[in-house]
């Protein structure tokens, strides 16, 4: 007999607030300017973040456990909203130069965030899939929206590879359902322990297909091919959004599915370890030979997928805490670095690394901020990137993946070279005329950069400000629910 599930909308509140922002951009776009709508959306994002705080410690769920506002969801939701806030601040200044300053841009952005939050709050595979598709479809549009040849090329590549990735993921979902007879994380986690041997093969196949599908979304090698083209070809503010918020949401989905539902499923750990090893090598080595700074940051995002993915190799308790910490730090430092590129670039191609020579003498504030971000991305000690890397290395190491930790440490050394070279060039004197946009330094972007730089510095000196929240022992043990 079918039961009517309880359909309480309270746990959905943060998602509904963001959705309200998206719908208001869609409808009010006929009457209001884009700038006004962006302020409305910033308000919606802040209200949504406040509602996350209000839901804290209530552990609500609805729709029969398909939607869960547990601690993990709220923490991941906060990271997503922090990235969104920084994106919106940056677009206030740069959208008109990127020729994307129209209401539809904000609407698509906020719809994508709705999908991102839905992934973090998901309690079963179908809700996760709906969130993932809302996010992906909106991102394809965002990447194309500028209408330039570069943006269209990046949008088509993103769309074709992203759609293929989604199809693989859905096929994997079908097999996980076939093996366990359920789509709910909790039920899958319960049944993976007591499968009959015939179904284990189906489960492993499903898990690996889902891993490939997620691999496309988070840019694990060898599924990372689209990343540099999309991040490099899309307008910089869109690259900022894709490389922070969208990636965080995809990792939230991986955390829910692999560390939650499929925690006891065999096989996927070792395949993920190989994919991560490939990602670390490919991402870091390819970043070494980039001449364009924006494209280098795209490869740095690929390399960071490897570092972030290592957390999934740990036990859920250690790995979830490490990932929760590192995702926020990654969002802050990547968003701040790309915000500076968006402000100072002459065209949406970004600028070449050699053009950054002497940046300190022209834009001292931004140059110092960028140096802090690069040092944090490289994982140098006083900044938060160091502690994040330490946590993920430790999570993988403790769970028996010592070789991955060693490889990650070695590739981090290669990473030092490509992060510190532009940082050093910025402080060298230069007599040639400036090659960046002179009027780029504006208040909202500066605010976003300041948020990012203050975040990585403060979290580096006092990691417990955020780590105390994410390291709470019972959060990550019940990612799938009870």
């Amino acid at each position, binding site marked *: 007999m079918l039961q009517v599930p309880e359909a309480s909308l309270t746990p959905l509140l943060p998602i509904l607030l963001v959705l309200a922002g998206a719908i208001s951009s869609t409808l009010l776009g006929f009457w209001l300017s884009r700038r006004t709508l962006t302020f409305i959306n910033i308000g919606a994002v802040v209200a949504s973040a406040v509602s996350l705080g209000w839901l804290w410690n209530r552990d609500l769920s609805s729709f029969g456990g398909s939607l869960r506002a547990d601690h993990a969801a709220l923490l991941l939701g906060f990271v997503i909203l922090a990235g969104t806030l920084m994106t919106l601040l940056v677009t206030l200044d740069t959208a008109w130069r990127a020729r994307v300053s129209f209401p539809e841009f904000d609407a698509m952005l906020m719809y994508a965030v709705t999908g991102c939050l839905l992934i973090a709050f998901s309690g079963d595979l179908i809700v996760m899939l709906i969130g993932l*598709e809302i996010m992906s479809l909106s991102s394809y549009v965002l990447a194309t929206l500028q209408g330039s040849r570069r943006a269209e090329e*990046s949008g088509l590549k993103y769309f074709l590879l992203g759609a293929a990735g989604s199809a693989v993921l859905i096929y994997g979902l079908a097999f996980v359902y076939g093996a366990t007879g359920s789509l709910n994380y909790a039920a899958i986690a319960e049944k993976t322990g007591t499968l009959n041997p015939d179904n284990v093969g189906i489960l492993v196949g499903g898990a690996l297909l889902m891993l490939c599908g997620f691999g496309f979304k988070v840019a694990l090698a060898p599924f990372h091919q689209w990343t540099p083209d999309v991040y490099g070809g899309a307008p910089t503010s869109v690259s900022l959004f894709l490389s922070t918020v969208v990636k965080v949401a995809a990792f939230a989905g991986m955390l829910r599915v692999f560390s939650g539902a499929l925690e006891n499923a065999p096989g996927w750990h070792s395949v993920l370890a190989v994919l991560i090893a490939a990602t670390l090598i490919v991402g870091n080595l390819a970043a070494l030979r980039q001449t364009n700074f924006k494209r280098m940051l795209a490869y740095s995002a690929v390399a960071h997928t490897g570092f972030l993915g290592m957390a999934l190799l740990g036990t859920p308790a250690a790995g979830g805490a490490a990932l929760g910490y590192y995702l926020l730090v990654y969002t802050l430092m990547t968003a701040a670095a790309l915000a500076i590129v968006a402000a100072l670039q002459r065209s949406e191609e970004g600028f070449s690394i050699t053009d950054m020579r002497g940046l300190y003498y022209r834009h001292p504030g931004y140059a110092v901020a960028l140096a802090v971000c690069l040092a944090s991305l490289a994982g140098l000690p006083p900044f938060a990137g160091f502690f994040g890397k330490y946590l993920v290395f430790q999570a993988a190491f403790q769970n028996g993946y010592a070789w991955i930790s060693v490889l990650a440490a070695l590739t981090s050394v290669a990473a030092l070279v490509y992060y510190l070279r532009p940082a050093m060039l910025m402080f060298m004197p230069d007599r040639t005329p400036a090659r960046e946009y002179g009027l780029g330094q504006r208040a909202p972007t500066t605010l976003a950069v300041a948020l990012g730089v203050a975040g990585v510095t403060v979290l580096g000196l006092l990691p417990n400000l955020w780590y105390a929240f994410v390291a709470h022992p019972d959060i990550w043990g019940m990612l799938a629910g009870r």
Partner: protein
Amino acid sequence: MVPTTSYLALSGILFALGMIGVLTRRTAIMVFLSVELMLNAANLALVAFARSWGDPTGQTAVFIVMTLAAAEVAIGLAIIVAIFRKRETTNVDDLAALKG
């Protein structure tokens, strides 16, 4: 009654055909059609599994996947049309400005 494995075999063949199409076809539309084939392979697998478990959840999932596929068509064709208007081609090999 047709056994579940037959349905799964057909779904596997459809998925493999779709995958081959994605990897070998050079026209954006054909790549896109191949992706749709992969989605329908997943739908067939979901329905077959739902029947073997005697559980309607898998079939409801198919409705959602179909809706997602429809949304994907709308977005995908819009992107392809936007590109075709500007370049008079949808050959993916001609889109090679971004590399390195």
